[in-house]
């Protein structure tokens, strides 16, 4: 923020002022790291349990002791993920109570318009990409998809872990239903991460802001034009005649 307050010296052409913009707090980055760690462990220990009929799974889980061990690891990672999720929700609730919860991540009608324009852009119906605020529709979609996906995984996972406790309050049918949901949602989440998330943060452009916490001015202008303009009061598009000459 402090960097954004500095005036840009536009007349001194050879001097290039490199501004960086804070995107994620340290806490958010830790949350993401914990998510990566627990998600990976859960994936690696869950997939052999799901595809039990395959050779490699039977080779890996060839004795009851190994099944037990893998399940223990799965449960420990699940606790880590659950702790992360509880922290995330708790933090949001605390911020909400203090009326300081940022509305950046909540989907708006503008996201639908952006998505529509993006679709038109991808279909060559327009030359213009939508300009985004702090989180674009794709990033919001990623967040909320995983938000609900992990919600399903956590809830169904605990139903499977403690079926006797759960059936004290719920009908028994929730257990096989949770089994199916856990099994299917895991595959969706894994493919989602690889196809959607990895594509957007690794292939489309290498976006390491979740680890560094920062975005460069260049990235801000290009990918978060609205946010950039909101923060700096400058035009994001350097090619615009008006913005450039100001």
């Amino acid at each position, binding site marked *: 923020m402090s960097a954004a307050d500095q005036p840009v010296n536009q007349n001194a*052409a*050879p001097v*290039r002022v490199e501004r960086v913009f804070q995107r994620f707090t340290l806490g958010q980055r830790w949350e993401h790291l914990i998510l990566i760690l627990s998600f990976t462990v859960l994936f690696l220990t869950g997939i052999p349990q799901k595809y*039990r*009929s395959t050779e490699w799974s*039977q080779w890996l*889980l*060839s*004795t*009851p002791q190994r*099944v037990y061990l893998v399940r223990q690891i799965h449960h420990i990672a699940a606790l880590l993920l659950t702790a992360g999720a509880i922290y995330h929700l708790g933090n949001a609730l605390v911020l909400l109570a203090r009326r300081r919860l940022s509305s950046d991540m909540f989907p708006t009608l*503008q996201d639908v*318009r952006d998505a529509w324009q993006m679709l038109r*852009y*991808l*279909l060559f119906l327009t*030359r*213009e*990409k939508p300009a985004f*605020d702090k989180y674009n529709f794709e990033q919001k979609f990623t967040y909320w998809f995983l938000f609900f996906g992990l919600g399903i995984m956590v809830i169904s996972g605990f139903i499977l872990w403690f*079926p*006797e406790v759960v*059936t*004290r309050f*719920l*009908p*028994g*049918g*929730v257990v*096989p*239903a949770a*089994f*199916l*949901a856990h099994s*299917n*949602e895991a*595959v*969706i989440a894994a*493919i*989602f991460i690889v*196809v*959607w998330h990895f*594509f957007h943060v690794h292939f*489309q*452009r*290498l976006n390491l802001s979740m680890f560094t916490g920062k975005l460069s001015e*260049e990235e801000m202008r*290009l*990918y978060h034009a*609205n946010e950039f*303009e*909101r923060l700096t*009061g*400058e*035009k994001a598009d*350097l*090619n*615009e005649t*008006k913005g*450039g000459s100001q």
Partner: protein
Amino acid sequence: MLRRKIGLFALLAGCLAVAIGVWAFIAPSVPAAPFVQGTPTPETAAEAENPTRTPIPNLSISDEYCLGCHGQPGQTFTLENGEPLDLYVPAELHQSSVHGRLGYACVQCHTDVGEYPHPPFKAADRRDVTLQLNAACQRCHSHQFELAQDSVHADAQLAGEREAAVCVDCHTAHEVRRLNDPQTHQLLPDAHTWIPERCALCHNAIYQKYKESVHGAALSQGNLDVPTCIDCHGVHNIEDPRTTYFRLRSPSICAKCHTNPEIMNKYGLSTQVLDTYVADFHGTTTVIFEKQAPDAAINTPVCYDCHGIHDISKTTDPKTGLQMRSNLLARCQECHPDANANFPAAWMSHYIPSRERYSIVYYVDLFYKIFIPLTLGGMGALVLMDITRTLLNRRRKRAAQTAEEAVEAGQPALVEQVRPAPADPTETAETSGTAAQPEAKPQVDLSAEELQVEETSAPASTEDMTTSAPENPTDKEMDASVDSEAKNG
């Protein structure tokens, strides 16, 4: 010399003549019968051709000869422990047996006692007599005898359990029955009921349970579809059912009949009981460890843990049937002590989820069947479109750049003015700017009209922007312009 040779030859010839004479005299009463009364089993044929085992039965001794003494009741032999051994063998007992009807003689089993007086016989007690004489079966039925050596009974014998069953305990000594149809090798109808009764001689408690079970009750009504003891436990090489391996493979024993539509359709029973069991994780674990680690002690249930071992009842049985939730709950609680009344429904009772049954499972399944292809397909399509557009943009820009170099349009000068570092535009274009950058360059190709349209749709000026609300100024601008256009229109 020559005379001595002739004498020796005459002596041998005389002996042979006497032997033939004696044989011709006795023959009608003893052999040949097997070849007249029925087709000999492979074992008997092999035995007839290959009488190499010792001692060779002395076929010159007829059953009448034996029965001359043993046909009289009241004869006993005192064993070493003082027990009397009854030596009486009723003639009709042997004659009505499968051996008697095929014409086998006493001495074909009792090979060493043809002559009287008998060679000395010593036995500690009556069980010892049985165990000693049981070896005779091996002479003809070597295959079955060897199979039996692999059985839990033989193991028990080796461990010193003398009461463990040997051949004659099940088949009897003198009234051996025909159990198979010699043509089809199928169990004869009366053997179905006879076999459990034989097992019951030792395993009576289990037999009583079996008799009350759905299988045993049907058997007593003459139903031959139901399994008897040997259908699950095997015939001669009866294995120990207390091993983990038996437990692991037990579902496949039940499945032999319960996945066979020919049998199950008669009773309206599902043939998908194995599939549905395997689909559930209890069953998955069981069948995998059956293959992977037969000695693994698993804690997942197999068929008999719920349905009972010998006292298997109909699931609809009002007293013991598993469709009574309380009965199933009791089974669940053996492994899940904290389970309550809702818990048994967690197991889908071999049903395949449908709208009517386990609808929640059915709808979760349906949801994912739609949701997975929809999301993944949509995501995949968007990603592919994104890649396509990016690649095409890159190609266009390259084309535009070459064109620029040739024409030297005025436009790029502006770009360079704003971005002081000369290397900057190429850098951004390579690393990240590929998607957004083209808008600047293709403008060269654009017609004047298009340019104007873009300018109006974009925010009109920076002054407007800074004064307007910070959130989504473009959005509001656009809305406003659209609205005004609509009103004007």
